[in-house]
């Protein structure tokens, strides 16, 4: 109780310097918040993107309806399969005609449909994994009613690459920025405590125990941290509402959302930083 009062008094006495520390910590956490916000929103945006990766199975011309149903049933059991589209010979011809546009009349001379029925498989992106896709394809190759399997080997690789690259970079960046923020906060708190070395010395000489000396400093540090975290959160809110409310908006930005987790993460991060920062900055008090 008294420690709290002391901490508040001291916060007020040194209000300018404390404000500056709060600004430092808030800025650090704000940057971190922006990074997390971006990651969250990019993730969300790409999740809503249409699936681009498909596997096309060209089936035997003479396949029976029963075999097709069996095949579809089997495919549905695969976890990586998201959607199955059966395109009959007739559908295929219709599609060809559409794609030929005005030149479609060239197909009029045909007395028989020369195309094959096919199945288009869309792969679930969440479970995307090159090895599993190839395993599926190997399995399908054993099916004698399938004439040919077409899947974009290269696209597969590049999607795989971009996606895992993205994940990797995101992780790296958040980690890096977190470390940076911790650095800034630590040195801010440490600089604050350098100023207080003499004060601590006096406390010691007057017979104060370690915990008595520590308490107000740590409470102070924690308050600075929490206020910094809340300020960072407010900054992120402001940023988002600014982006959403722009008069010449970029459509994508309209969709930005603040995840609920951020509302917890930033103040908690501030608290943890303030608490550990001041504890470490104080160091082991020696008598």
């Amino acid at each position, binding site marked *: 109780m008294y420690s709290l009062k002391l901490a508040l008094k001291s916060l007020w006495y040194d209000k300018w310097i404390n404000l500056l520390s709060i600004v430092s910590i808030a800025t650090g956490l704000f940057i971190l918040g922006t990074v997390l916000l971006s990651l969250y929103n990019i993730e969300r945006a790409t999740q809503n993107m249409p699936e681009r990766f498909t596997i096309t199975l060209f089936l035997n011309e003479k396949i029976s309806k029963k075999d097709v149903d069996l095949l579809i049933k089997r495919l549905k059991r695969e976890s990586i399969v998201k959607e199955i589209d059966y395109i009959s010979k007739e559908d295929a011809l219709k599609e060809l005609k559409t794609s030929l546009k005005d030149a479609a009349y060239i197909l009029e001379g045909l007395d028989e449909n020369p195309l094959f029925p096919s199945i288009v498989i869309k792969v679930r992106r969440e479970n995307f994994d090159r090895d599993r896709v190839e395993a599926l394809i190997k399995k399908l190759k054993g099916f004698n009613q399938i004439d040919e399997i077409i899947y974009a080997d290269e696209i597969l690789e590049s999607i795989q690459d971009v996606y895992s690259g993205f994940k990797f970079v995101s992780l790296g960046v958040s980690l890096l920025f977190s470390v940076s923020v911790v650095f800034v906060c630590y040195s801010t708190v440490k600089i604050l405590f350098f100023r207080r070395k003499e004060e601590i010395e006096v406390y010691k*000489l007057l017979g104060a125990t370690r915990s008595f000396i520590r308490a107000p400093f740590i409470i102070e540090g924690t308050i600075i941290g929490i206020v910094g975290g809340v300020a960072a959160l407010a900054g992120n809110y402001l940023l988002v509402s600014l982006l959403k409310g722009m008069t010449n908006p970029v459509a994508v930005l309209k969709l930005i959302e603040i995840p609920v987790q951020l509302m917890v993460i930033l103040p908690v991060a501030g608290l943890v930083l303030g608490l550990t920062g001041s504890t470490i900055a104080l160091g082991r008090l020696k008598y």
Partner: protein
Amino acid sequence: MIGFNQVTKIYDNITALRNVTFSIEKGEFVFITGPSGAGKSTLLKLVYLAERPDEGSINIAGWDTETLKEKAIPYLRRNIGIVFQDFKLLYNKTVYDNIAIALRIRGIKEAEIKDRVHEVLKMVNLRHKTDSYPRELSGGEQQRITIARAIVGEPTVLIADEPTGNLDVDNTAGIMRIFREINAKGTTILFATHNRDLFRNTGLRVLRLDNGNLVSDEKG
């Protein structure tokens, strides 16, 4: 109460104290004197454990400083009131808080703290400065706050390092009266000063240091 046995203290290349041996009984009022740089402050720092001896041993209230655990130091210091030569006031706290802190450290209740702080402020004639900050005080006023902080805890040992250097004759006399009263109640006092007038003809014990050596130990 306090025993020094062949104590030597060396700073870098300066021997601040050399083979100093003496002992002080409980309730004594002892002056430490000697020219500037003689080692008076160093001797006192050894008593309140701000410095450790390089040689010899020191015994404080039955505790040998060599074997004393770090954890016990705060509790030992609570029995010692210190008037620092350089005041060591907290400049971001009011006069009231500066004095109260010495009691808060001991976990005393705020109501009692209030009474006792006001009492010592009255003793040093600074009741009207309760809410000032140290920087708003004159040199002598700051020194009296330091004295008030040292005596508010009713210590069993009172250490005063040149406590009247910034005080006029009347204030000095007032402070000396307070010290004599406290001493009469049983507190042991170590009082470092250059001012011979303070101990001349008092009949109190005077330790004289010169260049780190204890050169005399006689009645003033």
